[in-house]
């Protein structure tokens, strides 16, 4: 039992990359995702993509109380806003890292918007998209670049 646990935790560690900001709190960055400079992540499987906001984003937002979701079937365009989150009396637009057609939205976020904070990469996913052009992924950052980007952004403050 003990050795199985050890294997599981080392597998977990192998795809987790922690970035530590100047102030010492760390935000989670996952190796197998791609990232936009507006702090959204995308996971691509074939011609389908799942989109959400990153751990860094949810930390900097505060407690999310509302998520505005797009309609299923709507077209989204890389870098453009498709919805918004509200936290601390501020609405923040969410931009899509990838273009395509919205296949599914996470309805759980209507009842439980805080999932974006507690599970930004898993249960807090926001939309699933059928992508037009897989080549667009070239414009995004990998986990290493995104971690550095977050550190640089936090250092400005």
């Amino acid at each position, binding site marked *: 039992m003990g050795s199985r646990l050890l294997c599981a935790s080392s597998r977990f560690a192998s795809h987790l990359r922690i970035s530590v900001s100047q102030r010492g709190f760390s935000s989670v960055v996952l190796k197998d995702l791609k990232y936009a400079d507006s702090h959204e992540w995308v996971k691509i499987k074939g011609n389908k993509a799942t989109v959400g906001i990153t751990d860094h*984003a949810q930390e900097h937002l505060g*407690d999310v109380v509302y998520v505005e979701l797009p309609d299923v079937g709507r077209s989204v365009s890389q870098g453009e*806003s498709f919805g918004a989150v509200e*936290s601390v*009396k*501020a609405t*923040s637009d969410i931009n899509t890292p990838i273009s395509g057609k919205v296949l599914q939205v996470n309805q759980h976020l209507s009842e439980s918007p805080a999932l974006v904070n507690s599970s930004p990469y898993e249960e807090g996913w926001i939309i699933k998209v059928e992508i037009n052009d897989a080549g667009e992924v070239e414009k995004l950052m990998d986990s290493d670049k995104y971690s550095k980007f977050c550190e640089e952004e936090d250092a400005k*403050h």
Partner: protein
Amino acid sequence: MRSPRTLEVWKLGTVNYLKSLKLQDKLVSERKAQRIPDTLLSLQHPPTYTLGKRRTDHNLLIPESELTKIGAELHYTQRGGDITFHGPHQAILYPIISLRSIGIGARCYVETLERSMIDFASIYGVKARAGNKCETGVWVGDRKIGAIGVRISSGITCHGLAFNIDPDLKYFEHIVPCGIADKEVTSLRRETDALLPSEETIHEQLVSCWAKAFSYDDVVWKEDPSVILDSQDNK
């Protein structure tokens, strides 16, 4: 060594709410395209009720049809926050700034807005505090003196804060202010016996507290509001 940060401040006087929304939209585009520096609008509105993105109009306690009778307008917006009232003798600041340039997010931005209002209140000996969780804004005891409602798109802010100097607080009786029942609304006039200077001076003090809280190196005051207000009409 970071480069110096400049803030341009426009003193606009009383501006119709819709006009101020159009102006902010334009300035947000300009700021996003880096054609203008960080900009702050200092103004007041005629009597106006506004709602945020969540459209919590159940917190308007009189029928919409009654609003013209009391001389007020109602507007729906994309900002965060609940229902609020804006009117004469309430000082409003709409910062159009790039949060990405200073590397902060919504939470830190809003906390700094609160701090700027708290500092301003202290000029008059008023001990204000930031709200508890779910009560964003600035309070004196259990009475709300400053409200916040913000929108951030592509890292650029619009809407902002409203600080009650001496508005007609009766207007707040027609709403559940900010969706928080059982809590009073107050004003600087109510909370201090100090002699209040002219409104222009008060607005300048609020702007100064704001610029200090956000660590601007240079503040450029723009005196001719017609430059940005009227330029919108020439389309």
